[in-house]
């Protein structure tokens, strides 16, 4: 199937970004409306494509569109083409749907910002780039979108770049992403060198002929790319600082969509990972470690946005774990991704709403008892909370438990370890999320005198309510008759019949729920039964202190990469100055010296010039004579 309409999915928001950026101040008054309408238009188009897709049989659902021949060098040929299949459309609807709601929310949230137009331009740019990322039909096209979202993310993290720390945060995100991007570009090069093509269909076709070593290399490099974009170990450190951006950005880019691009990449490349078991295992291990890592950090954060950011790292860890489990897990990874898109966006928008009512205070120790003042925010936040905990029937229950279950059933010691990690993660998640909710909405009021908490305007709470519906019901819908799994089946191989079951689904659910109750109970004991001090206590265990320092991730980066890197550059500068510059200067001095000597031949007298000519002529004859002798 081909279609000519796919390009408009991207073109609409891209047009908005261009208009808003080029029109300048003239677009200040109406620009945000245009941006929102265009994003909404893209969503409607996505819905239309979705309905068209539903009317076709499952094999014929993918549509493609060739835009133009992009690169054609010798045997290397890349067409800029788009492909919309079942996996892409899931993302398209998430990106444009949640994206549009966040556009609406931002109209109110950013209403006092002088640069609102620029903000919306970047948001539209992001939506366009993200759509290109999921619609590209080759790794190279994906790469363009991949870099595009990186750019938009960088611009939006540093949106308030008048604050140096925010600009630094943007730079940090940029650098960490660059490492990941290098992985992606290397993966593309290796794929081309070994498979001779970079299109998804071509790579899938040729993957069978490639050696396992090559596929493992590609897989590992793709994993590096995914860790950068999706804030997984060891490139996770940037996400917490990325919260410097405006809260809607955190909701859209750094929770719901962009950071899940790594999961998309791994799922999209399932044919590579399925043929490279080592790379696949690495994916699962990275996911398992990261989900614990993020959860532990989340439990120590007093900044509501940073706690949620750590939670995002952790939740994406679940998705990566799911994707690393192979055919058994892809569909659940995507399901969790979509569910997470709803509940985490809802949580962030809720956090934004709280901040909106609290003079941009982010320290949860300065909150408390807000449920009376912000009932709608509390309710929607609560829906997200129950969903992330995995309480039935909220969305997270369906997706997260399936991942835990699939991990246990991965077989052998590996299954037990991965499953236990996921299960433990669920308990810690319950602890830190309960901590967030209790510290924010329950207990005594701890805010300062001049703060007057109030509910946010309808333009903000309406999107929150809609997203809360998603957090509540989407999981139920996805699992009716295995709807999502069957839907995705042509893209990711459907799971083979399970040989043995270590733990039955019911048992996993019960275990998970028990642990959730334990985690939540601990948090309630600690933060509701006792008073929360306004200043974080210092006499805490070493464990807490390390967790507060983000498990030393920055210290690690500083000691292992930054300092040696600095010393290396200093050393290189010295070598450059002494040896290379010295040599160049030496040659320069020699050249200048000889130039000075040679220029004396230019006396200005015709007689000496004529003598040169004569000598030259004699020299010519002498030379020619000598060679012919």
């Amino acid at each position, binding site marked *: 199937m081909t279609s000519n309409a796919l390009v408009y999915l991207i073109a609409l928001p891209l047009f908005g970004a261009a208009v808003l950026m080029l029109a300048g101040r003239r677009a200040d008054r109406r620009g945000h409306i245009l941006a929102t309408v265009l994003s909404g238009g893209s969503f409607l188009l996505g819905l239309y494509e979705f309905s068209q897709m539903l009317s076709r049989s499952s094999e014929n659902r993918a549509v493609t569109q060739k835009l133009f021949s992009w690169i054609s060098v010798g045997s290397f040929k890349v067409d800029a083409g788009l492909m919309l299949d079942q996996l892409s459309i899931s993302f398209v609807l998430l990106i444009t749907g949640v994206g549009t709601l966040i556009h609406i929310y931002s109209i109110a949230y950013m209403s006092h910002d002088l640069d609102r137009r620029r903000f919306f331009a970047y948001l539209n740019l992001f939506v366009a780039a993200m759509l290109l990322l999921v619609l590209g039909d080759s790794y190279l096209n994906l790469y363009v979108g991949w870099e595009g979202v990186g750019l938009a993310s960088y611009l939006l993290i540093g949106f308030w770049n008048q604050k140096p720390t925010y600009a630094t945060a943007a730079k940090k995100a940029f650098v960490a992403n660059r490492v990941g991007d290098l992985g992606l570009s290397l993966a593309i090069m290796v794929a081309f060198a070994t498979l001779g093509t970079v299109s998804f269909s071509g790579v899938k076709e040729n993957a069978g002929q490639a050696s396992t070593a090559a596929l493992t290399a590609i897989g590992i490099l793709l994993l590096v790319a995914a860790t950068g974009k999706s804030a997984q170990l060891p490139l996770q450190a940037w996400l917490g600082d990325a919260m410097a951006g405006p809260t809607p950005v955190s909701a859209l880019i750094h929770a719901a969509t962009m950071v899940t691009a790594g999961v998309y990449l791994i799922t999209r490349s399932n044919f590579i990972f399925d043929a490279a078991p080592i790379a696949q295992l690495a994916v699962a291990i990275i996911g398992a470690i990261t989900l614990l890592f993020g959860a532990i950090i989340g439990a120590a954060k007093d900044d509501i946005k940073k706690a949620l950011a750590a939670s995002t790292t952790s939740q994406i860890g679940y998705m990566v774990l799911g994707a690393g489990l192979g055919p058994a897990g892809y569909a659940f990874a995507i399901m969790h991704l979509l569910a997470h898109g709803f509940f985490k966006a809802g949580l962030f928008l809720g956090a934004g709403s709280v901040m909106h009512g609290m003079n941009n205070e982010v320290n949860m120790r300065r909150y408390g008892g807000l449920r009376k003042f912000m009932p709608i925010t509390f309710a929607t936040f609560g829906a997200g909370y129950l969903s992330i905990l995995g309480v039935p029937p909220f969305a997270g229950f369906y997706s997260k438990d399936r991942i835990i279950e699939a991990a246990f059933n991965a077989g052998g010691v590996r299954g037990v370890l991965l499953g236990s990690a996921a299960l433990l993660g669920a308990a810690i998640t319950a602890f830190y999320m309960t901590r967030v909710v209790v510290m924010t909405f329950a207990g005594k009021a701890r805010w300062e005198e001049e703060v007057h908490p109030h509910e946010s305007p309808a333009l903000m709470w309406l999107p929150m309510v809609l997203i809360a519906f998603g957090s509540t019901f989407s999981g139920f819908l996805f699992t009716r008759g295995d709807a999502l799994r069957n839907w995705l089946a042509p893209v990711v191989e459907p799971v083979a019949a399970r040989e043995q079951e270590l733990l039955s689904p019911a048992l996993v659910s019960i275990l998970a729920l028990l642990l959730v109750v334990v985690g939540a109970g601990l948090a309630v004991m600690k933060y509701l039964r006792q008073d929360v001090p306004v200043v974080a206590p210092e006499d805490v265990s070493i464990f807490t202190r390390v967790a507060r320092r983000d498990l030393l991730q920055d210290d690690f980066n500083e000691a292992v990469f930054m300092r040696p890197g600095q010393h290396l550059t200093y050393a290189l500068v010295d070598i450059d100055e002494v040896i290379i510059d010295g040599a160049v200067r030496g040659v*320069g001095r020699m*050249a*200048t010296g*000889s*130039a*000075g000597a*040679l*220029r004396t*031949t*230019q006396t*200005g007298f*015709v007689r*000496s*010039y*004529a003598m*040169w*000519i004569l*000598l*030259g*002529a004699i*020299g*010519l*004859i002498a*030379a*020619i*004579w000598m*060679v*012919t002798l």
Partner: protein
Amino acid sequence: MLTFTAPTLSYFLLSPILVVLGGALLGVFAEAVLSRESRPSAQLTITLSTLVLALVQVWRIRDESSLSAAMGSVAIDGPAVLLQASVLILAIFSVFLIADQGSFTAMAAAIPGSPEEKESLQRGEKLTEVYPLTLFAVAGMLLFPVATDLLTLFVALEVLSLPLYLMAGLSRRRRLLSQEAALKYFLLGAFSSAFFLFGAAFLYGYSGGLTLSSIYDAVIGGTANSVFLLIGISFLSVGLLFKVGAVPFHAWTPDVYQGAPTPVTAFMAAATKVAAFGAMLRIFYTAFANAYWDWRPFLTVIAIITMAFGSLVAIAQRDIKRMLAYSSIAHAGFLITGVLALNKAGLDATIFYLFAYGIATVGTFGIVTLVRDSSGEVTDLNRWAGLGKRSPFIATAFATFLLAFAGIPLTSGFIGKFTIFSAAYEGGNKGVVVVGVLSSAIAAYFYIRVIVLMFFTDPEEDGTVVVIPSVLTRITIIATFAITIFLGVFPTPLLNFITSMATFIR
């Protein structure tokens, strides 16, 4: 009784040359009958329409291939068309610069500093003789690379040289310097022409004929006295190498480049090089092709010392025009490597290089005419400091031309150097290529030094200004700039065209 046979001429094939000569005569006539006020515009119109018409004629003969255009004295073939077209295009741009009359004296015949000079300046007279002179020179340049017998070659050489001697002495400022340059150029030119003629005589003695093909046949026959051939080749080479400014026959170049009015320098540097190298290619690729064991060694040495000397001495220059003169000497060396290659690739590369270099040269000197103070052009390099801040576009264009001279990628110069060096490498002259690349590296130093001076040094308030260029000068700068970039990014169309065209007929 002596019978007279009328020569048969193919007027169609000769039309580019004839059109230019006709235009020159018309210019002389106009000089005689038109009033002083109407002359500048009339002469400009005559000159430009002549050149454009000649270019059209060149286009019309592009598919011709004939040795009998003028009784075996002129060959019209692919290279001829390419070289003639190059000369004409460069001449048109140069005339655009010449039309900006600020560089020329009002009355060339007046003694510098004399009352007559003052008077003519006060009357605001404009010098218009330069236009017919330019056309005569162009006619010689069109004939030089297509001439196939030694006498026609000599006549063409003189037709192109004599007007240039005069034009070099027409500068408005520093007239003594200009006139000294003209005299030096004339004396040395006469000296080297004598060598050329002497060489032609020896070659006649060797082969018994004056045409290039008769020399070619005699070399193949191998029975004639080879001493005559060797002396002939040497002396003919002296004349040619003098015109292209190769070491040790280069000494006139810096003095003349500096003394001549800058538009004339542009014309001389760009168009003369095309004509002289065109003739050199034809002579060495046809007449002497099979004697290459004799001439290759000395030409190799000349190429090496020319490249090295030009690049090195340019470093020590403080005057922009002298620096460009030494740069042109170095480029002559690069071009000789193309002649040395003695293969099809070398021919193609040399023609491409000539065109690309000529374009960049005209643009460069066009910009030199713009940087002035109250007493005329500022050629002291130190006073170009901070030009990038004063006039970003002009400085950017100038930097681009310099980068092209240095052979930096994305400019025409890179493609030119790359093709010419790879041709020489294929032709087996690896040593020359090594020296060439090293010289390019040295040369990059002084080009980039100027760029640093323009962009990274603060301007001093010393009255140096970039004047607003006239429309024609502006067109020249923009067009040459665009061509330089275009040939650097998309060289393939022109290279393919040259490859399909450039084959000498014997």
